[in-house]
């Protein structure tokens, strides 16, 4: 219970942080950006504490010992929310881009409330014994690596959205206050590119790790399971983005649309596939 309560607290902090991010988008005062950051720190702290309780409960089951509890839908959403917030704080800290909070943090918000919703549906936070196939050190690596790449793509999506808005602002010849608040078009474009160029190898490595694990657990490297297929499609879309960007010089709107399509694939791979996949479904509880 402590775990869920702390998790709800974290979700509330993320919500407040996102709200401050939106206020900061329109109000000039820097204090909103500071409030946003403090909410994220507080949310992450509550989140980590909640995860501590989760770990304790999870490891109380002997066969689960020292594996990470991110196999369930709740665990995965929780991890995504935390990683999105942390990736944003890092990106923002490096580039002083608190202004992008309004574009990125909604994903942390959605993931954390999604997890709260899931817990209320299930009546618990989905802590049960791992099936033998999952009792492998790969469970500590393969999903985590992939979800980190998802978060980076989530950040890239937010940056892309900001780019579309900024581009429209400058093109309109009547730029509003927002234009002067958002980063420059070329800076957003290069950040979008760099995030994807950083996330893509992580995604690829994550998929290959999954293959190696699958070989050990199920005796085959690749089996065209729905999750595998969609992960591959996602990787191909981002590969195409990188190719068009580097070789064909795609920039601005066209490139952003492509990267956004990539992120749609990410979301589908994460959620939609649950209804299709036999082996990777969080909903099928395997």
């Amino acid at each position, binding site marked *: 219970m402590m775990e869920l309560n702390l998790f709800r607290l974290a979700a509330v902090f993320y919500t407040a942080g996102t709200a401050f991010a939106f206020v900061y988008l329109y109000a000039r005062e820097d204090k909103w950006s500071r409030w946003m950051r403090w909410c994220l720190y507080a949310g992450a702290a509550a989140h980590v504490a909640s995860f501590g309780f989760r770990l304790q409960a999870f490891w109380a089951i002997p066969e689960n010992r020292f594996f990470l509890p991110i196999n369930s839908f709740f665990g995965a959403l929780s991890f995504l929310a935390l990683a999105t917030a942390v990736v944003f704080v890092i990106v923002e800290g490096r580039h002083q881009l608190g202004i992008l909070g309004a574009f990125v943090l909604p994903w942390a918000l959605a993931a954390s409330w999604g997890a709260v919703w899931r817990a209320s549906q299930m009546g618990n936070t989905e802590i049960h014994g791992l099936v033998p196939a999952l009792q492998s050190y790969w469970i500590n690596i393969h999903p985590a690596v992939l979800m980190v790449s998802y978060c980076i793509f989530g950040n890239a999506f937010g940056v892309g959205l900001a780019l579309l808005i900024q581009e429209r602002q400058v093109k309109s010849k009547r730029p509003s206050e927002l234009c002067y608040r958002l980063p420059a078009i070329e800076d957003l474009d290069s950040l979008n590119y760099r995030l994807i160029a950083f996330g893509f190898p992580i995604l690829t490595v994550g998929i290959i790790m999954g293959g190696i694990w699958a070989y050990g657990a199920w005796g085959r490297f690749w089996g065209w399971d729905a999750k595998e297929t969609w992960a591959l499609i996602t990787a191909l879309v981002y590969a195409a983005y990188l190719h068009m960007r580097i070789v064909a010089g795609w*920039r601005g709107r066209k490139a952003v649309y492509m990267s956004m399509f990539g992120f749609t694939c990410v979301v589908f791979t994460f959620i939609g596939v649950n209804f299709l996949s036999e082996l990777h479904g969080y909903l099928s509880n395997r």
Partner: protein
Amino acid sequence: MQLVLVGVSHKSGSLDLRESLGGVSAEDALRRLKDAGWSECVVLATCNRFEVYAATSNSGDVDALATHLQAWSNGRLEQGLYSRRDGEAVSHLFAVAAGLDSLVVGEAEILGQVKQAYQAASAAGLTGKLTNVLFQRALHVGKLVRSDTGVSSGQLSVASVAVTLAERIFGDLHKSSVLILGAGTMAELTARHLLSAKVSRLHIANRTWEKARTLASALEAEPVRWEDFPRLLESVDIVIGSTGASEPVLTKAMVEEAIKVRQGRSLFIIDIAMPRDAESSIDEFEHAYLYSLEDLEGLVRENLSMRRKEIEAAETLVGAKSAEFAAWLQEAAAGRQAALRHSADAAPRS
């Protein structure tokens, strides 16, 4: 301790301040005041104002201070001189630091000048508890007003609006290169603005080669032969049109050719020529951003009206911060301990 202020500014007299003060610099003034026995004073001297802030135990000293200033000016300052005490002196200094008393309201330079004035006094050993707290507070309020209100946002000239827009496209301009078409006064003015934004390269093309060369050498730019400028469109980031040509010199076909090799990089075209230098259909290209003189003038008008609104918010903030400080000053004068927070909280905005 009490705070007194005596000074003269562009608001109180239209005379040339430097001339009327007989060339007395801030350092001279500090030295003379020290010799005259003043122990705590700061002299703020700019092109538009000359003010002495002093802490004293005797409120009658304000007249003594005024007498000093008049003596330096040989009596020429008689009319323009104003004096303030305590709370009024505080709110005056805060308003000055916030740029609300400046010729161009909200200008940024004054904050640095207040800082320099304070540092000079400090170096001369002429600051004490009151002046230290007062000036640090004034600098804080000056920054707060600029960050929390729009009083210094929005550029007020066509050239500076153009530079601000360029920064919305390219970010920091130090990697951007610029091509200027024409070598007239407007071309030069815009070029100087861009140079102060530290653009990496400046090319100047003009139909008359000699004129291009003259302006280029004055600005340390590169002159370009008129027939060569279309080729430069492939590499530059910003193009400024300011020729006196009667027909557009920058055609859609030229830009189309250039875009083929630009790899999607943004091209910002600032057309400040009358009649226009660039064909308006250029704007149809995704990565080309074309602003005409009317567009830029429209933005200047918007900025002006916005700034007028923001002045009210800035005045409210300065008023609140001055009252807070005046209360502290009173407590301190009565010998009581009072805390002054450097809170970043703004006064409620109307």
